[in-house]
C-alpha cells in the first residue's frame, strides 16, 4: 500500500471537524434567503387565517398589524440600541479582562480567570435581574445627579456576559497566534506592551471577527429578555398591542411578525459570519 499523508494508509481515520462551516451535505447558500421568504409566507398565512376567523366589521388583521408597526419599530430600535451599547461596553471591558487573563502577575491572572468563568457560567436573565434590581436609579457624579434609566441598567446587565465571552475570545485568539511570533518580536527587542499592541493583537482581530459577530447575533436575540424586567422594547410593546386589541386571532400573526423582524435583522449577520469564516479559514 502506498504511504499517504496520514501515515501508512491513504484512508484518513477522521476528517477535520468544522461546525458552522459549509460542507457538501448542505444546500447551496442562496437557499437561505428562501427561508426568510418562507417565514414571511407563514406570517402571511397566519394573518390570512386570523382574517378568516375575525368577526365581520372589525378592521382587517393586516391593517391592524400595520397600524401597530410604527410602535413596534420604535421598540425594535431600542432593542438595536441596547445591543449596540451592550456590545460596545462588553467588548471594551472584555478586551481588558482578556488581556488580564494572560498577565504575567499570577493574582491578576487568577482573578480575571475567575471573573470570566463566573460571568460566563451565570444565566443572562439572572444577571439582568441582578443589575435591574441592585443598581441605583440615579448616581451622583461629582455633584450632578445622573438618572440611570431602566434600559441603561438592562444594557449593563447584558454587557456583563458579553464581557466574559469577549474575554475568552481574546484569550483564545492570543493563544492561537504561533509562539514564533512572540519569539521573533522578542529577538527584535520589542517590549511586551509593544509586542501585544503592534504584533499580536492586530493578528487577533482577524481571527476574532467571526466569533465576535456570532456573539453579537446571540446578544441581539437576547435583548427581548429586557421585556421581562420591564423595559419598553419590541417584545413588551407587542404584548401591549395585543392587550389593547384583545383579539385572540391576532396572537399568532403578531408574534410571527415580531419573529420575522428579528430574523430579518439576524440572518444577514449570520450569513456574513459564515462567509468571513470561510474566507479566513486556513487551508
Amino acid at each position, binding site marked *: 500500500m502506498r504511504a499517504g499523508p496520514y501515515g501508512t494508509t491513504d*484512508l*484518513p*481515520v*477522521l*476528517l*477535520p*471537524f*468544522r*461546525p*458552522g*462551516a459549509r*460542507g*457538501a*451535505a*448542505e*444546500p447551496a447558500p442562496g*437557499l*437561505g434567503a428562501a*427561508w426568510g421568504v*418562507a*417565514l414571511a409566507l407563514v406570517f402571511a398565512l397566519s394573518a390570512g387565517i386570523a382574517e378568516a376567523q375575525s368577526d365581520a366589521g372589525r378592521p382587517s388583521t393586516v391593517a391592524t398589524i400595520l397600524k401597530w408597526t410604527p410602535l413596534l419599530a420604535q421598540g425594535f430600535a431600542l432593542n438595536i440600541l441596547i445591543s449596540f451599547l451592550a456590545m460596545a461596553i462588553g467588548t471594551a471591558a472584555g478586551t481588558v479582562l482578556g488581556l488580564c487573563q494572560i498577565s504575567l502577575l499570577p493574582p491578576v491572572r487568577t482573578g480575571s480567570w475567575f471573573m470570566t468563568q*463566573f460571568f460566563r*457560567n*451565570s*444565566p*443572562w*436573565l*439572572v*444577571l439582568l*435581574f*441582578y443589575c435591574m*434590581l*441592585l443598581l441605583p436609579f440615579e448616581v451622583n457624579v461629582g455633584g450632578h445627579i445622573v438618572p440611570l434609566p431602566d434600559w441603561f441598567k438592562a444594557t449593563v446587565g447584558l454587557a456583563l456576559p458579553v464581557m466574559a465571552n469577549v474575554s475568552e475570545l481574546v484569550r483564545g485568539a492570543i493563544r492561537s497566534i504561533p509562539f514564533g511570533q512572540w519569539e521573533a518580536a522578542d529577538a527584535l527587542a520589542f517590549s511586551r506592551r509593544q509586542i501585544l499592541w503592534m504584533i499580536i493583537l492586530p493578528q487577533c482581530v482577524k481571527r476574532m471577527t467571526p466569533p465576535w459577530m456570532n456573539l453579537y*447575533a446571540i446578544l*441581539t*436575540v*437576547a*435583548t*427581548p*429578555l429586557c*421585556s*421581562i424586567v420591564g423595559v419598553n422594547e419590541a*417584545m413588551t410593546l407587542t*404584548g401591549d398591542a395585543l392587550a389593547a386589541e384583545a383579539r*385572540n386571532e391576532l*396572537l*399568532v400573526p*403578531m*408574534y*410571527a411578525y*415580531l*419573529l420575522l423582524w*428579528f*430574523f430579518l435583522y*439576524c*440572518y444577514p449577520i*449570520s450569513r456574513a459570519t459564515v462567509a468571513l469564516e470561510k474566507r479566513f479559514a486556513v487551508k
Partner: protein
Amino acid sequence: MDLTPLWEWFRWLYGATGVKLTIFYDAFDRQRFFDGFLTSVRLQAACLVSSVVVGVVGAWLQGSRLKPVRLAVQGYIQFFRNTPPLVQLYFFYFALGYYLSYMTDEGLRVALVSNFAWAVICLSLYAGAFNVEIFRAGIEAVPKETIEAAEALGYSRLRAYVYILLPLAFRISLPALNNNLVNLVKTTTISYAIAVPEMLYVANQIWSDEVNVPEMMNVLLVIYVSLVGVVVWIMHKWERALRVPGYVS
C-alpha cells in the same frame, strides 16, 4: 439528620447582621425554594436529553436523499437560530397554546400542554437547532469510506447511522456539544416568563413577600453558577472519557 440548629443560625444571622435569608429559617420559604430548585433541575435535565435527541434525529434527516426533507431541516435550523428564544417561547405558549386549549362547561379555559411542557418543547427545539449543526459537522468528519465499508457489510442507512456513524461523530462533536448544552442550561431561566415555577420564579415570589432582594439575588447567582459549574465539570469528564485517542480537531 436534624438541621434545626443550622436554620436557627440563619435566624440569628438575620437578627445580628440584617442578612435576611428566609429560605433557610422559614419553613414555608425553604420548602418552596427547594421545590423551585427541583423544578429547575428537572427542567434542565428534560431539555438536555430532548435537545440531544432532536439534534441526532435532525442530523440524520439532514443526510436524507429527499430534497424536501433536507430543506425542511435547514429551514428549521435557520428559523430557531436567528430568532430570540424568548419570543419563540411566547409564540409557543401564548399563540399556539391558545389553539391547544379547550373551554370547559364552567367557562374555564384548560390548556392541553402545561407551561412546563411548553418550556421543554421550545427550549429543546431551540438548542436542538444548534445540535443538528454540531452533529452534522461531526458526521462530516467521518470519512465516506467508513460508511462504504458499512454498506459493503450489508448495513442499511439507519443501521449504519446508529451503529457506526453516530458513535464516531458523537465523540468528535462532544466539545462543541458541551458548549451548547451549557448554554441551554443557562437559557432555561427564560421559562420564568411563562410562569414555570423554577428557581428564578420562586425567588421572585420570595423577594416580593420578604423584601430581601439583594440576599435572594446573590443566593440565586451562586446557585446557578454552581449548577452550571457541575454540568461543565461532568461534561468535561465525559469528554475526556470518550476522547478518540490521537485525534486532534
